[in-house]
């Protein structure tokens, strides 16, 4: 099992969800986050006061998948989240040791 963590542009969420659903991913968790990467921030001007905004709003999408689904999920996610410009985000993959479905007590692949 793998845990996929993707940082994406907020407006790409719907496309990402659809793409992941199509390849068989059965659930995702989304969090609003801020951060910086290669994309520059922007400046804001309020009357005389200028502020540089370094941290940009992004979404963090997490989903746990079976090994067999990993490549398809990564491809779908990357294609859906891509605009081709700096700031599209990143995808991280980690190994996942255990999974439990709370309602039934099912374990690991059965719980995904």
């Amino acid at each position, binding site marked *: 099992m793998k845990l996929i963590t993707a940082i994406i542009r907020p407006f790409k969420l719907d496309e990402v969800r659809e793409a992941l659903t199509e390849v068989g991913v059965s659930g995702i968790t989304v969090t609003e986050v801020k951060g910086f990467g290669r994309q520059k921030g922007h400046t*804001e*001007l*309020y*009357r*005389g*006061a200028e*502020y540089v*905004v370094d941290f940009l709003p992004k979404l963090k999408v997490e989903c746990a998948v079976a090994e067999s689904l990993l490549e398809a999920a990564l491809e779908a996610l990357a294609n859906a989240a891509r605009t081709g410009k700096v700031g599209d985000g990143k995808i991280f993959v980690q190994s996942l040791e255990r999974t439990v479905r709370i309602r039934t007590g099912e374990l690991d692949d059965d719980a995904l």
Partner: protein
Amino acid sequence: MKTTHPTGSTAATSTKEGNHAVMHSQMASRASGDVGRGAPRLAAAFAALAALAAPALAFAQDAAAPVANKGDVAWLLVCAALVIFMTLPGLALFYGGLVRSKNVLSVLIQTLIVFSLVAILWALYGYSLAFTPGNAFIGGFDRVFAKGLDATAMGATFTKGVYIPELVFFVFQGAFACITCALIIGAFAERVKFAGVLLFTVLWFTFAYTPMAHMVWFFPGPDAFTSNDAVPGVLAQSGFLFARGALDFAGGTVVHINAAIAGLVGSYVIGKRVGYGREAIKPHNLTLTMVGASILWVGWFGFNAGSALEANAVAAQAFVNTFLATAAAVLGWTTVEWLSKGKPSMLGAASGAVAGLVAITPAAGFVGLCGAIIIGALAGAVCLWGVNGLKRLLGADDALDVFGVHGVGGILGALLTGVFASPSLGGAGIWDYVTETALPDYSIASQVWIQLQGVLVTVVLSGTVALIAFLIVKYTVGLRVSEESEREGLDITSHGESAYEN
């Protein structure tokens, strides 16, 4: 005037904007004219000769009790409500949106409390000190504790023989006092101690607002100008700046410059906000600010047009000028900002609206439509500098730019009033209350000089009183919260509540 006032002269006569009198000679239909400044000017000339000519002046002849015009009464009561609406919620929302979310409630409650406090002080003694006979600088105690202020008391307008119930004048003027004191809050927002705001308000209202209102607006009423010989005596009973002939239709000096100087002094005395210049301190909700600015604009029609004290053509002139100057200021600020900073901002446009409203205030009933548009456009551009270049020069953390907008816009408007009130530029000229016509000659240079004197008197008086008041507050109840409280936000630490869930 007359009536119940103990001295016989009038309390109410007051007439704010005294001068407002000036009216356009062509508006012949309005024969009655407003109070005129012309008179004052003339008077200055005669003053040396006949100092106290006629103390008892005019009131003798009114045998019949004066009757108010119902249209005037209805109009002015609506205007008073509009001016109250400017503060609550207009100014409160305008300021509330400009602070960080952790301080929004503190600004709202300060506005609400200052308004309420000043309203009561106005009845207890403020109205009396501002608008009853006294000396050139401050009124007397005839109306202390609202003595004699009942439904039978009548006050003067700017037209001979036209009166309004004194209660109408009382509440209209009271609303001005309230918003003036509330304006100052913006300068020391986000770090001031609540008790300090209260004590400062009492001190500054008493020793700066009431004398300014008296100096600029108090005069014995148009009926007193019975002849040229009577003028010096009338002026001797009038406020200092009124007698000098300073034009201030609706309160450029009394309200805006007055409050702005107090705010600037306050921002020096209290010091900069923690993190100022290093951390991002930005408005938390410019939507509220837009709503507030819009409410201010609407309320300002009551503020400016109501200052005619009658439902007449001068009120219409002030109304239209308030409409046009503000629009011109929005465009002026936005154009310069767009060209110089690259983007036209909503906050800039809303600030431009307020700058235009401030600048047209002293000029509202005196200038023509084109004059109003020019005053507005210049105010937009110059106040943009007020919150940028000038703000950096001054080096104070005037949090919500009270001085940059109200001070700069107020001074600009006061001076340009002297320019565009000239009949040669479409203005109304100087009104002579004796003959009830506009004076034939008008000197822009000398009027601008008189206007500048009005500005300087305001700056010195308000600045001095504010400095002393802030120091008294600082060394008694305290002016500033602790750094820890400031970081956490005044909403929680001073008031025990928060505006938003997160």
